[in-house]
């Protein structure tokens, strides 16, 4: 079972105390965007085997949304961080790179954010 640390409570919360919010760091494409961009924003989701960034809500606790970086294959959790960020913090990226040297940073559907 997944156990994530809520960055607001500092509590190791069991999966059953959390609600999933699916993929994190999506960039919104609104009415001014092209149909292809909007379709990608609305429907296209990553489904990686490996490092993944997700939104979670501590629904049976403080009720806040937070973000988590974990491996979908091994359930290894690299870290959690507050949701008020546009991209994963540097320390989380460093932790992932230490554990998964072959991993290439990327969390946007278009892959343009690769560092």
């Amino acid at each position, binding site marked *: 079972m997944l156990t994530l640390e809520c960055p607001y409570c500092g509590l190791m919360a069991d999966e059953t*105390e959390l609600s999933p919010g699916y993929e994190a760091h999506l960039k919104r494409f609104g009415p001014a965007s092209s149909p292809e961009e909007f379709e990608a924003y609305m429907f296209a989701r990553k489904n990686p085997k490996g490092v993944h960034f997700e939104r979670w809500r501590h629904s049976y606790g403080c009720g806040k949304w937070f973000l988590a970086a974990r491996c979908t294959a091994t359930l290894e959790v690299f870290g959690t961080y507050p949701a008020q960020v546009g991209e994963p913090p540097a320390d989380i990226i460093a932790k992932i790179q230490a554990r998964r040297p072959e991993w290439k940073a990327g969390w946007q559907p278009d892959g343009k954010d690769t560092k």
Partner: protein
Amino acid sequence: MSDPVSALNGASFTGFATIREIGPLGMISLRHKGGAALTKAIKAAVGTKVPAQRRIEIKGEMACGWMSPDEYLLILPYAKVGATMAALAKALAGEHHLAADVSDARAVFRVEGAKAAEVLAKLSPVDFAKLERGELRRSRAAQVAAAMWAQDGGFTVVCFRSVAGYVMGLLIHSAQPGSELA
């Protein structure tokens, strides 16, 4: 004025631990980002300091619990809620805040006895061995949200009034004689 009635009218059960529905208990949900005005308002309302993360400050029959980074739960006698609400509105005037009287929206239980933690351990994903004194734990009791903390040799459990019957059923089932853990 009609008399306030608690959700289960003080139902109780004695198994390997004692379950009592208590109340009505005055509760105010207070949302504020924190600061000198909040410290002063909480001190005036329930006489405690502002609780740190996941803590509950208890003083007599009053208490203040940390619910989330911008939310506090004030516990006080039911009769004092009206006056305290007015005092909070005055103390926090001009500050961005929200104070709501949630006394009638909640049900409160006491689980007492040497094995009280075992009753709750069956229902919540909480490690009671690691639950510190003065720690307020928001979690779930089986399928519904609940908050619990250790107090006076037992635990106080708070849940929504609409699920009071369900939670009482859970606690009774969990406290059946002979069903102790190890």
